[in-house]
């Protein structure tokens, strides 16, 4: 299982700030959340694995922590 932390708008769309998922890579996490939560697929967000930004699809191992962080614009 991997721990998925959701920030800002993403947490609202998914109705939770933390999810536990059993998936092999970052792309399948995005795909799973897009399928499960309407509106998710339209979101832009940065992905971090174990607090390190990743820009390509990244393989995940049990115990990894993902963070999905969208841009904010309020000021």
């Amino acid at each position, binding site marked *: 299982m991997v721990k998925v*932390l959701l*920030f*800002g*708008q993403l947490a609202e769309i998914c109705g939770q700030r933390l999810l536990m998922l059993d998936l092999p890579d970052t792309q399948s996490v995005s795909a799973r959340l897009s399928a499960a939560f309407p*509106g998710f697929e*339209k*979101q*832009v967000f*940065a992905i*971090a694995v174990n*607090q*390190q*930004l990743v*820009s390509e699809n990244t393989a995940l191992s049990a115990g990894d922590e993902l*963070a999905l*962080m*969208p*841009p*904010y*614009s*309020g*000021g």
Partner: protein
Amino acid sequence: MDSYFQRQIQLPEIGTKGQQRLLDAKVLVVGAGGLGCPALMQLAACGVGHLSVVDFDVVELNNLHRQWLFSRSDLGKRKAEIAADLLNNQFAHVVAKSYNCELNGDLAIKLIRDADLVLDCTDNLSARYLIDDVCALLDKPWVHASVSKFNVQYALFLPGQGFSYRNLFPVPPNPLTVLGCNREGVLGVVPGLAGTLQANLALQHLLGFGGDGFKVHHLNTLSSEGYSIAVSPKPYSGPADISQLLTYDYSAFCNNFEKP
């Protein structure tokens, strides 16, 4: 130097040398709203000597709960001008200049070239990418902060060293999915914290301490939980030079709904 900054100078990390550095520093603050008000106040009070304030907007009644450089008697007046006047009046060591207009490419280049550091205190993505790009091409540091409801995101970007907003978000979001304070509302203290965190990063960078690598920070003000993401430096991916930047359509870049 009199005792005005004594409590800061007492810190071994600052001393008279550090304080003088702040007094000599030139900081550009883009946006004098919910982030800009606290950021400007903190920078000025801590002794940043030269502040330039850019804002095209005028004061509205629904700004006052979080934009406390302004009062009811300022309604309808230009934010940048009022903010700069207030800072000049309150702080003898500050020279604040105002630019009552939108930040475009030409103005951004002129003002950022002359600044040691930039704060993006706007609430719009076009300005953010413009600042990121100009800072990349002119090798200047800039400090970002933005809020979404009770959450704050903030970072010190060094685009000239490969850490830019474009690293984090190469593709801007669909503007309909990023709500901002006008549409989703905000508790006044949250941008107050965000602008203060921004000023804190700026002051530490100017003083030459603080920070540990390229990181973007997040604060959930409901749970008081912080989270940081480390970012590896990457080649800059924006306009290749100033002339390309001046013809770059930031509004189209940030408002293209058909993004993958």
